[in-house]
C-alpha cells in the first residue's frame, strides 16, 4: 500500500490531474452533446466538457472519435443533433466573431498576397481601415514571415503557408482559437517549430485554444489539459490537466512516461470500442510496444 503510494508519487503521472471545471466557471460549455450524421453514424454521444478561459485544451484521440466534429460544433460549422454548446453562457448558433477555426490546410485566399489575406480578414472583422495594415504587418512579424508580405500563397512553402494562416488567425483576435490538426500536414521539423511558435504566442496572449490532434506528443508539448476521446461512438474517456511548466522539452523523461500512459489509454479505448478490453500487459511489454 505504502509502496504503491510512493510509486504513484514518484511517477510523473502525478502531473496529470483529473480536470474538474464547473459549468459556471467555464467559458465554453458543452453538455450532453450528441451528433449523428445523416448516414446514421454516431459521431458523438453524451459529451460533456467545460473549458475555462485561457486554457489550452487538446482533444486527443484516434481518427473517427469525433474530435473534429466536436471542434466544428464549437466553431458553429456543424449543428449538433443533440445537447447544447454554449460560449459565455450563450448557445452557439453558427460561426461568430468570438471564435476562429483554423484548418489542417493553410486555406489562404490564393489570389491575395500574405498581407492582403490578413487585411481582408481584418476588414471582415470590422477593423477600421487605418489600423489594418500596421496590425497585419505586426502579426506577420510575430510569425517570422517578415519580408514575405507581398508574396502569393502558392509561392510559399508548406510551413510558411501555415505560419501565414496562423498570423491571420491571431490577427483577427477572437478570444477562442479552434484548431483542427493544423500542423498535421507539415514535416516533423517544421511541425516542432510551429508548435514552439504557437506556444510562445499563446503564452503571451490570453486566448483559449482548443486543439485537435491524434499525436500524443504534440498534445503533451502544448496543452494545459488533454481530453482523451474514443471512437464508436465518439465520447470522452479521460479529461486530464497537465501540470508541467512551459516551455516543455521534448526529451523530458516525465513527458515520455506521460505519453506512454496516454497511448495506453487511447489503445484501451479503441480496443474497448471493438468489444473486449485487451488484457493488462506487463510494463516492459507495453514499453516495447510503444517505441516508435
Amino acid at each position, binding site marked *: 500500500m505504502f509502496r504503491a503510494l510512493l510509486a504513484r508519487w514518484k511517477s510523473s503521472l502525478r502531473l496529470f490531474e483529473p480536470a474538474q471545471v464547473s459549468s459556471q466557471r467555464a467559458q465554453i460549455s458543452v453538455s450532453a452533446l450528441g451528433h449523428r450524421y445523416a448516414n446514421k453514424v454516431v459521431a458523438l454521444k453524451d459529451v460533456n466538457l467545460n473549458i475555462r478561459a485561457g486554457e489550452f485544451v487538446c482533444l486527443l484521440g484516434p481518427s473517427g472519435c469525433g474530435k473534429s466534429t466536436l471542434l466544428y460544433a464549437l*466553431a458553429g460549422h456543424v449543428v449538433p443533433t443533440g445537447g447544447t454548446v454554449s460560449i459565455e453562457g450563450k448557445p452557439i448558433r453558427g460561426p*461568430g466573431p468570438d471564435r476562429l477555426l483554423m*484548418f489542417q490546410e493553410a*486555406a489562404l*485566399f490564393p*489570389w491575395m498576397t500574405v498581407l492582403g489575406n490578413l487585411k*481582408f480578414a481584418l476588414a*471582415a472583422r470590422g477593423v477600421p481601415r487605418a489600423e489594418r495594415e500596421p496590425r497585419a504587418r505586426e502579426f506577420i512579424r510575430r510569425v517570422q514571415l517578415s519580408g514575405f508580405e507581398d508574396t502569393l*500563397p502558392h509561392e510559399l512553402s508548406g510551413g510558411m503557408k501555415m505560419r501565414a494562416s496562423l498570423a491571420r488567425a491571431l490577427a483577427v483576435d477572437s478570444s477562442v482559437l479552434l484548431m483542427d490538426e493544423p500542423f498535421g500536414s507539415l514535416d516533423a521539423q517544421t511541425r516542432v517549430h510551429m508548435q514552439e511558435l504557437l506556444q510562445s504566442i499563446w503564452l503571451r496572449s490570453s486566448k483559449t485554444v482548443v486543439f485537435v490532434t491524434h499525436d500524443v506528443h504534440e498534445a503533451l508539448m502544448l496543452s494545459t489539459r488533454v481530453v482523451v476521446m474514443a471512437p464508436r461512438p465518439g465520447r470522452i474517456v479521460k479529461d486530464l490537466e497537465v501540470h508541467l511548466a512551459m516551455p516543455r522539452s521534448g526529451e523530458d523523461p516525465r513527458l515520455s512516461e506521460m505519453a506512454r500512459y496516454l497511448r495506453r489509454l487511447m489503445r484501451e479505448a479503441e480496443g474497448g470500442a471493438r468489444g473486449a478490453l485487451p488484457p493488462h500487459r506487463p510494463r516492459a511489454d507495453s514499453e516495447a510496444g510503444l517505441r516508435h
Partner: protein
Amino acid sequence: MKRWARKLGMLVLLLVVWEAVARLGLWSPHLFPGPVKVARSLHALAADGRLGAAVLRSLGRLGRAYLISVGTGIPLGLAIARLSFFRDAVKPVVMGLQALPSICWLPLALLWFGLNDSAILFVVVMGSVLSIAIATEDGVNGIDPQLIRVAHTLGVRGPRFSFGVLIPAALPGIVTGLKLGWSFAWRALLAGELLFVSGGLGQLLTLGRELMDVPQVMAVMVAIIAIGIFVDRVFFQTVERRVRRRWGLLPSM
C-alpha cells in the same frame, strides 16, 4: 523558336499549295482565286477604308452586345450557383435555351425589333449570355469548399463575400466562360450580319457574293479569321494565363 518555325513553315506550305492549285486551272480563276489575288483584294479593301469601317462597325456592335452578356451572364451564373430557387427553377430553362443555336433567335428578333442593330444585338446576347452564365456557375461550384468555410469562420458576409471571395475564387472559371462567350458572340454576330444590310463584316461578305467577287469574299474571311485569332489567342489567352498564374494554378516559371 522551333515551334514558331514549324507554324510558319506550315502556313507557307499551305499558301504555296493554294496558289499552285489555283494556277492549275481546275476551277475557274473567278471562283477559286489564289492567295495573291486574295491578298491584293484585301489590300484594296483596307486601302479605301471599307474594311476598316466594317471592322469598327462589327466590333462596336459586338462590344455592346458582349458587355450586356457579361453584365447579365455573370450575375445569373452566380445566382444559379448560390440560390436554390435559381438552381431548381432557372437552371433547367438556361440549359434548355442553350441547346438552341443562337441564329434561330433571328427571325423572332427581326419581328420584335425590325431590321436594325437591336435585332443583331439581341441575337448576339442570346448566343453568349447563357454560356457565360453556365461557365460562371461551373466556376463557382468548383471553388475549394475550404475557402468558403474560411470565409465563414472569418465572418466574411454579404457583398464582401460575393465580391471578395466568390467572384475571385471562381475567376479562372469565369475567364474561361468569358472566352467561350466571346467566341459564341463572334459567331452569332457574323451570322446575323450576313442576313441583312448591316454595314459590318458580314455585309461585306454578302456584298462580295452579290458582286461575284470571290477574292473579296475570301479576303473578308481572312480578316475575320485574323480578328478571331487575335482576340482569342492574344487577348483571352494572355488574360487566362495571367489569372491562372496568379491563382497558383500554373507553375510560375
